[in-house]
């Protein structure tokens, strides 16, 4: 019988596609293309949408902005969410064998890619429509049908551009995937801005700089009592302070250090004796996936809870899931935060004082995050085809065996490491995230973790690139 995926065949010719490069792209050009797409993304994430009513409503998605690389009220309102959603949906469908596709066959692979793109285009459109209909930019009747259509068009077009950029990068014109690149740049932008923002705020206490570094210099130059100046720069509560900045650096360093923990297994190819390859199993075996999944999971709980709460704020059952309130009006950005119920307990404590005030919350949050990360880490190996079973099967099919373990099954050796690495790695990632949140690191724990892992992946790709060039030269 024809597979479901074959239904996509008739529309392949009309979907936009990035052509594969005919020859290998030199490294210099890769950097060029990556920078270009980064620039386009940056411009998009700073261009305000046309036709939007600036409602002072709270931002329901502030939690997801970090991992979705989205900016409120700009062309990048959707961020990479269409990409991520599409990727996850397709992977789940394939992983659960709902869509049967043999990724080893070239034809199926082409069809699968096309299907993914079609789903991506549709998801973007659907999300844009959903955003406008849900009244994020004001009631549809208030902004008018014309404006509503215009907003949908802007969001969809920007989303499609992003989709194409991602495809271009993945086709070998750039380094790594677009999703990671955009997320990393988004977080880095936040961190740099929080450190060097030239915005000044005067609340009657005197002019203060928003950026932590600038504030430090400002206070040092202005205050007569230098000691007081330094302590204020380090510890001020209302705006980003130097402690957060240092915490951010600390988490960066810790994360990079832990990235290097790995078990180096050696494999040998049975067909070409003497050819050995290291097969490292990293502690962060699943990279940043546990934290992405955990964040997505939490965001969904938030989303549902918030929706329910807005519908009927007084139902006790709904209160059990989550009670929401808008943050105090004097802070610069307004968004609703959970104040009790399940949603409250799975949210990170906002500041250190809050943590001391409600230690049970902190403990619950810690336990929840660690457990969720461990479970997601373990599950992800199954979904992404990196589980013991999949890896051992690939090795067997390619006649690759572990060096020094002739009489032991490959699967048995791998099962000594992979499940532990996946689970423990998930826990470590979760722990770092929690630590970052407790220390008040800039850009949120999840954001920093994502950025570091992404940057490290880039670095590894870069090192590999160099190594392959060198070995090519060596063979010449």
């Amino acid at each position, binding site marked *: 019988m024809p597979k479901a995926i074959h239904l996509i065949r008739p529309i392949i010719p009309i979907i936009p596609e990035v052509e594969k490069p005919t020859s290998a792209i030199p490294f210099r050009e890769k950097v060029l293309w990556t920078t270009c797409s980064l620039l386009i993304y940056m411009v998009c994430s700073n261009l305000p949408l046309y036709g939007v009513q600036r409602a002072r409503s709270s931002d329901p998605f502030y939690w997801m902005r970090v991992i979705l690389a989205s900016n409120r009220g700009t062309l990048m309102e959707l961020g990479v969410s269409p990409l991520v959603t599409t990727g996850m949906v397709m992977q789940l469908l394939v992983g659960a*064998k709902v869509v049967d596709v043999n990724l080893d066959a070239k034809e199926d692979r082409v069809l699968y890619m096309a299907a993914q793109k079609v789903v991506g285009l549709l998801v973007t459109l659907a999300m844009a429509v959903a955003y406008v209909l849900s009244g994020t930019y004001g009631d549809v009747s208030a902004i008018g049908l014309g404006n509503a259509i215009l907003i949908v068009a802007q969001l969809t077009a920007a989303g499609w551009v992003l989709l194409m950029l991602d495809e271009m990068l993945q086709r070998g014109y750039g380094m790594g995937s677009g999703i990671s690149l955009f997320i990393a740049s988004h977080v880095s932008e936040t961190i740099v801005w929080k450190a060097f923002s030239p915005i000044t705020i005067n609340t009657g206490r005197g002019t203060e700089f928003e950026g932590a570094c600038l504030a430090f210099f400002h206070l040092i130059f202005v205050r007569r009592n230098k000691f007081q100046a330094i302590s204020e720069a380090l510890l001020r509560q209302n705006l980003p302070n130097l402690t957060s900045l240092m915490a951010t650096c600390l988490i960066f360093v810790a994360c990079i250090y832990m990235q290097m923990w790995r078990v180096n297994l050696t494999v040998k190819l049975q067909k070409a004796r003497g050819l050995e390859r290291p*097969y490292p199993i990293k502690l962060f075996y699943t990279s940043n996936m546990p934290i992405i999944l955990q964040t997505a999971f939490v965001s969904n709980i938030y989303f549902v809870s918030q929706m329910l709460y807005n519908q009927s704020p007084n139902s006790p059952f709904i209160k059990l899931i989550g009670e929401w309130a808008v943050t105090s009006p004097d802070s610069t950005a307004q968004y609703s935060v959970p104040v009790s119920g399940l949603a409250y307990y799975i949210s990170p404590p906002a500041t250190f004082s809050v943590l001391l005030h409600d230690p049970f919350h902190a403990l619950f949050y810690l336990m929840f995050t660690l457990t969720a990360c461990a479970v997601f880490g373990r599950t992800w190996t199954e979904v992404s085809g990196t589980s013991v079973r999949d890896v051992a099967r690939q090795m067997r099919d390619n006649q690759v065996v572990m060096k020094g373990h002739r009489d032991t099954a490959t699967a048995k050796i791998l099962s000594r490491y992979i499940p532990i690495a996946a689970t423990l790695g998930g826990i470590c990632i979760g722990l770092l995230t929690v630590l970052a949140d407790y220390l008040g690191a800039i850009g949120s724990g999840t954001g920093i973790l994502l950025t570091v892992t992404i940057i490290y992946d880039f670095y590894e790709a870069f090192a590999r690139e160099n190594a392959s060039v060198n070995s090519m030269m060596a063979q*010449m």
Partner: protein
Amino acid sequence: MLQYDDSAFYFVALSFITLYIVPSWYSIINNVRVALFSTDEDIGAVSRTSAEKQKASELKKTSKGLKTLNSTGFIVNFVLTLLCSAIFLWLYFSVQSNGEVNSFDPFTILQIDTGAELKEIKKAYKKMSLRYHPDKNPNNPQAEATFMMVAKAYEALTNPVAKENWEKYGNPDGKQSLAVSIGLPEFLLNVDNRNLVLLTYLIVMVIVVPCAVWAYYSNSSKFGEKDVMYDSYAWYHHNLNEHTLTKSLPEVLAGSAEFRERNLTKSQADKDEIGKVLARVKSHMQKPSYNHPVVLKGNVLLHAHLTRQTDVLSEASMEDLRFMLRYSSSLIDAMISVCKHQESLKSALNCVKFGQFVAQGMWIKDSELLQLPHFTENEVGHVAKGKPSAKTIKEYMAIPNESKKGLKEFTEEQKEDIFKCCDILPNLTVETKVFVDDDEDDNVYEGDLCTVLVTLTRNNVPEGEKAGLVHAPRFPFPRREAWWVALGTKEGKIISIDKVTSPERVVVHKIKFLAPRAGHYEFDLHVLSNAYVGFDHEESVELTTQDPSALPEYKVHPDDAELDDEPTLFEEMMNANIEADSDSDEEEDSDGDDDDESEEEGIRELTEEESKKRELQKKARKKDDSDSDDDSDVEEVHAD
């Protein structure tokens, strides 16, 4: 609308300038320190023999002292830093006088210590209010304002409501409206300047930035591997082939793209000088195949160096020659890599030998003994005729110091130099071993990746020490000792050629290549110094490859073979659900039950999956039986 704020901009500028000048001053001071106080070893100006003394003092002259800082980058940075520091100071003092942060601190206003007692506060208030009371200071607005502030400060410290307001919002009157501005100069927003600002922006973004990128890119794209120009590589490709001899190599080096601008003869005097030198070196020179003045000049200068006749060169030509010699090492390496690409062992070895001659300043027909300090043709003749006689440098080194010939006309010090030099000259032993890096059987079979392990031992270097710089008094730059290890077939094809640069006493170098078809082979292993003439090793490496059919077949471990039967996590979960739904224990049955309940789609999916699984199992079994396997999917997974 964001307000632009000049005074805030001062602070922004101040902060960024600080961020620039602090590391910049550090690097400037560090550079100066290195220029003034670096030791002789750091710049490679060692003088172990008196022959090296002149080279060391030259090196000290050129790479020490303040004039080494005379580079464009350093000067630009220095001027920029000075400028920024001046701006910094100016900004700092102007900010000090007017940029007081207008924060409300009641303790400062009352001129008491922070956290003073209530009694003290009251006392201070009374004193201050008496002094600044408007009745006492008529027509003095300054005093009146101060009086108001004092009253406010007193209130903030005594009235609980005002105190709370002050602590929370910084103002005893309660929350003030939030004023947000941005630290950028106000003139940017001025309507009159709008066109100018836009124009500047446009010029910078549209013209300057792309031009800068283009300039950088076009410059960097001229250089290939190891910072050697692509044009040089092209020139070498054109001029080197398997018949290239050492004596034609100076011309090849002289034509490198790096020298083309510098070696252009500009004046008639230049040309005359080249003609004069050419007449002197012509007898040692191969007939030039290029008559281009640039190539000819380089060629002549190099020959002057190789035949030790640099004393006839003018100061300018000497500079040009030094410039060529400075780049010669990396360019000769590039020539060798071109030979490697052409797979020609002989020309590669010729290039290495040419490098040796350049380092020692001698030429093909010269005796190896000329490497020793103070030696001339005269002494070489004595050594050759003497008893014990020596033709090669190795033989001469083997002779005990007291019976070495040819030293009659030397002073004690010069003799000492020669003995010292004999200690510095390398004494290398080479061992080789061929094997396959495998944990079961290290015999070589066809198609294996076999390893030639080359162990170099420097016998003249004491245990635990490292090889120092090369003794090359005629080469004006410090040079590190390295060995070229080349493996080639008897037909002269290169299998591998690498520069082994490690200065350790014992160096291990691995050459890996795919074993050829079953049979007996002999390869040539050459180990050549990068700077000394006459220390080349040549060895024969034997390799016997066996037929791979003797190897045991690859067997899948039984546990691994069953991998396909193991359910995935999802299947496990699904099965768990199914089992929970139905009472039957057997899976087949439960599937059947499930099928009845689910839609058509579900049945097809499941059955198809089953059949696919069976197919896979069959395939796996087949693989066990026959050793024929498809190559198509091999490199996919573990190629990374």
